[in-house]
C-alpha cells in the first residue's frame, strides 16, 4: 500500500516529468510562428518605456524591443501580444511560458541572470541614479553639489547610492526623505530641497509633472549602474540569439546611418557593412532560422536604436532625456553592438 510519502514522491516525479516534457518541446521560434504573434511581457505603465497611447497602441522603448523581435521573426512589427506584468510576477510569467520575451525595464544583475533560469540578452537602456536641479542654481555638474539639500524617496537603493557618492567625492549633503515619488516631487516643488534624485528615466517623468518643467534640468552625471534589457528563458539558444541580435541590429543600424526613412535607398549601398546588415548577399539570419531581410524589417518598421530612443524617451518625446551614456560608442556613449558578419 502507498503511504503519504510515496504519494508526495509520485506527485513530484509526475510534475517533473511534465515540466521536463515542456522543456524538451520548447521551440519558441516555432511556437511564435504558429501563434502568429510574439508573446511579449511589458510594464503595466512606465512613461517612455511602455504605456498605451490614446489609440490603445503600446508605445515605448521596451515596447520597441518587442516590435523588433516581431519584425525579425514574423516580418510584421505589429504581430505582438503585449502582456502587462508587474514587478513581482514578471519572472514567473517568463519561466512559465506565458511570455517569451520580457522587456520590462529589468535591471541586469548577477542574481537574476544566474539563479532564475533566465538570460539577459543585452542592454537597451543604461539607467542609473541622477540629479535634477533648479536651473537658477547655476550648477552644471554633480561635483558642485557640496552642502546641497537633496530630496530622496525612502527605502530605495537611491538613498544609499547617493550617500556613497557624496562620501566618495568628499562632499556633504542634507537628505530630505519622503515616502512616495509624488511627495518627493511635492517637496522639491515647494523648495524644501535644491536637488531631487532618482533613476534618470524616472527623473524625466517627474520633471514633466512640475509646474514649470523648463525651470529644472537633469545633470549629466549618473552615479549608479542600472542596465535595463530584455530577458528570455534559458534553454532555447536560438530564441536567445534572435532577441539578442534584434537589439544589436537596431544599434548597428544607427552606427551605419541606416534608418526607417533611408533603408530602402540603402539596399543598393556599396558599403559591405550595410549590405551585410540588410542581407544583400549572405544571409546572416539563416543560423537563427530567420529570413535574409530580418534586420531590414526591423529597421524599416521599428527604426534604428537612435530613432526609437528619440521617439520614446529622447528629445522628440516629452521626457527629453539626453542620450548621455546611451549614445553610441562612436559618439561618446557606451552603446556598442558586435558587428553583423
Amino acid at each position, binding site marked *: 500500500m502507498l503511504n503519504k510519502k510515496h504519494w508526495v514522491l509520485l506527485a513530484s516525479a509526475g510534475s517533473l516529468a511534465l515540466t521536463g516534457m515542456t522543456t524538451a518541446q520548447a521551440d519558441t521560434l516555432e511556437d511564435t510562428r504558429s501563434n502568429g504573434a510574439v508573446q511579449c511581457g511589458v510594464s*503595466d505603465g512606465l512613461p517612455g518605456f511602455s*504605456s498605451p497611447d490614446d489609440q490603445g497602441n503600446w508605445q515605448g522603448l521596451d515596447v520597441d524591443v518587442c516590435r523588433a523581435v516581431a519584425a525579425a521573426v514574423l516580418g510584421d512589427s505589429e504581430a505582438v501580444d*503585449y502582456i502587462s506584468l508587474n514587478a513581482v*510576477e514578471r519572472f*514567473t510569467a517568463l519561466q*512559465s*511560458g506565458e511570455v517569451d520575451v520580457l522587456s520590462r525595464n529589468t535591471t541586469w544583475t548577477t542574481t537574476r541572470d544566474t539563479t532564475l533560469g533566465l538570460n539577459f540578452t543585452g542592454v537597451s537602456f543604461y539607467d542609473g541614479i541622477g540629479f535634477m536641479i533648479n536651473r537658477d542654481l547655476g550648477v552644471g555638474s554633480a561635483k558642485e553639489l557640496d552642502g546641497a539639500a537633496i530630496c530622496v524617496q525612502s527605502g530605495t537603493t537611491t538613498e544609499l547610492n547617493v550617500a556613497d557618492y557624496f562620501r566618495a567625492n568628499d562632499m556633504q549633503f542634507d537628505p530630505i526623505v519622503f515616502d512616495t515619488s509624488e511627495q518627493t516631487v511635492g517637496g522639491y516643488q515647494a523648495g524644501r530641497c535644491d536637488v531631487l534624485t532618482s533613476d534618470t528615466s524616472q527623473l524625466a517623468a517627474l520633471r514633466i*509633472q512640475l509646474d514649470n518643467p523648463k525651470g529644472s534640468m537633469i545633470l549629466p552625471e549618473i552615479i549608479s549602474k542600472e542596465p535595463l534589457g530584455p530577458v528570455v528563458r534559458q534553454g532555447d539558444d536560438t530564441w536567445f540569439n534572435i532577441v539578442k541580435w534584434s537589439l544589436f541590429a537596431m544599434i548597428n543600424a544607427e552606427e551605419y546611418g541606416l534608418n526607417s526613412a533611408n533603408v530602402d535607398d540603402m539596399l543598393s549601398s556599396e558599403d559591405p557593412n550595410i549590405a551585410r546588415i540588410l542581407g544583400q548577399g549572405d544571409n546572416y539570419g539563416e543560423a537563427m532560422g530567420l529570413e535574409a531581410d530580418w534586420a531590414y524589417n526591423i529597421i524599416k518598421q521599428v527604426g534604428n536604436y537612435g530613432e526609437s530612443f528619440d521617439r520614446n524617451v529622447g528629445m522628440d518625446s516629452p521626457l527629453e532625456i539626453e542620450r548621455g551614456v546611451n549614445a553610441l560608442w562612436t559618439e561618446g556613449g557606451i552603446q556598442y553592438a558586435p558587428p553583423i558578419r
Partner: protein
Amino acid sequence: MIHNQDMIPQQPAPRSTIGPLAWMRANLFSGPINSVFTLLGLYVLYLLLVPTIQWAFINADWIGTSRDDCSGEGACWVFVNARFTQFIYGLYPREELWRGNIVFAGFAILIAWLAIPRLPYKRWVAIFALTAFPVIAYVLLHGGYFDLPRVPTHRWGGLMLTLILAVVGMVGALPIGIVLALGRRSNMPIVKSFCVVFIEFWRGVPLITVLFMASVMLPLFLPSELSVDRLIRALIGITLFQSAYMAEVIRGGLQAIPKGQEEAAAALGMTYWKRTALIVMPQTLKMMIPGIVNTFISLFKDTTLVMIIGLFDLLGIVQAALSDSRWLGFSLEGYVFAAFMFWIFCFSMSRYSQYLERKLHTGHKR
C-alpha cells in the same frame, strides 16, 4: 346668549411655523449653540465647495486633443475625453468595438427588463440572462467563431472588464453561497465539514493573496500546455472568495427564520428541497437584501485588485493612461473620473436594493 352659527373659516398656519424660514428656525437655528454650529458648517462647506466647483467646472478645460489644450488653472477633462474609449473598453481593438457595444446594450436591456416591474416574461428573460447571454457575450467579445477575429482577454479592459468581473462574481457567488450556507447547517457530517473548511479557508485569506496565487504560483505548478487564461483564473478566484462571504450572509438570514416555519412546512409533508425553496429561502433572501447588496458592492470595488495581476480594469487602465509620457501629471482628473464611475454603479446598486426592500416589504421589519 350669543351664539355663532358659522364655522370659523380655516386659517393658514401662522407664518412663523411654515415655509423654509420656519424649517430653518426649527432645525438649524433652534438655539445659540446650534446656530453657531450651523454657521460653522456653512463656512466649512463654502471653503470646500467653492474651490472644488471652480476646479472641476468653471476653470476646467473640456475640449481638445492634447495637453497643450489645457490651461492648467482647473481640471483638464481633455485627458479623460481623449482616453474615454480606452477607459470604457480597455485596449480592445478599435474596429471591433461594436462587439463590446452589443454586449453592453444587451446587458443593459436585460437588467432593465428584470428591474422594471411592468414588463412580462420575467422568468424567461432571467433564464436567458443566466444561460444564453453569457455564452453569446463570450463568443462576441472573445471571437474566434463565425469569422469574428479573435480578441485575447489581455486586450479586454476598462469599465467592460470591471463589469465582467463584478457580474460574473455576483452571479457565481450567490448560488454557491446559498449551497454553502445550507451545507454548513446540514446534519450530514461530510457535507458540513466540507462547507465549514471551504468557508473558513476562503474567508481566512486576503483576496490579494488569492489573486497572487492564481497568477504567480499556479502557472509554475501547471505545465504550459495546461495554462489557464489569467482572466479566468481571476474570475474563479474572485467567485470562490466572495461565495464564502455570501455563505455567511445567507447563514445569518437562515438563523433568523423561526424554526416553526420549517416545522410547519414539514408537517404539511413537504420534502427538504421544497421546504427550503418555497418556505425558508424566499424569507431569508428577502430579509438579507441589505447584507447581500453590501457584499455585492464590496465585490464591485474589490475587482480593482486585479490591477496587481496585470489586468487593466477601470482603475488599472486609468493608471496605465497616467503613465503615457504625453499625459503625465493628470492623476487627479483620472482618479476623480474613476471614483465617479464607481460611485455611479455602487450608488445605483444601493438604491435598487432599497427599492426592492420596499417592494418586498410584508411587515417583517421591526
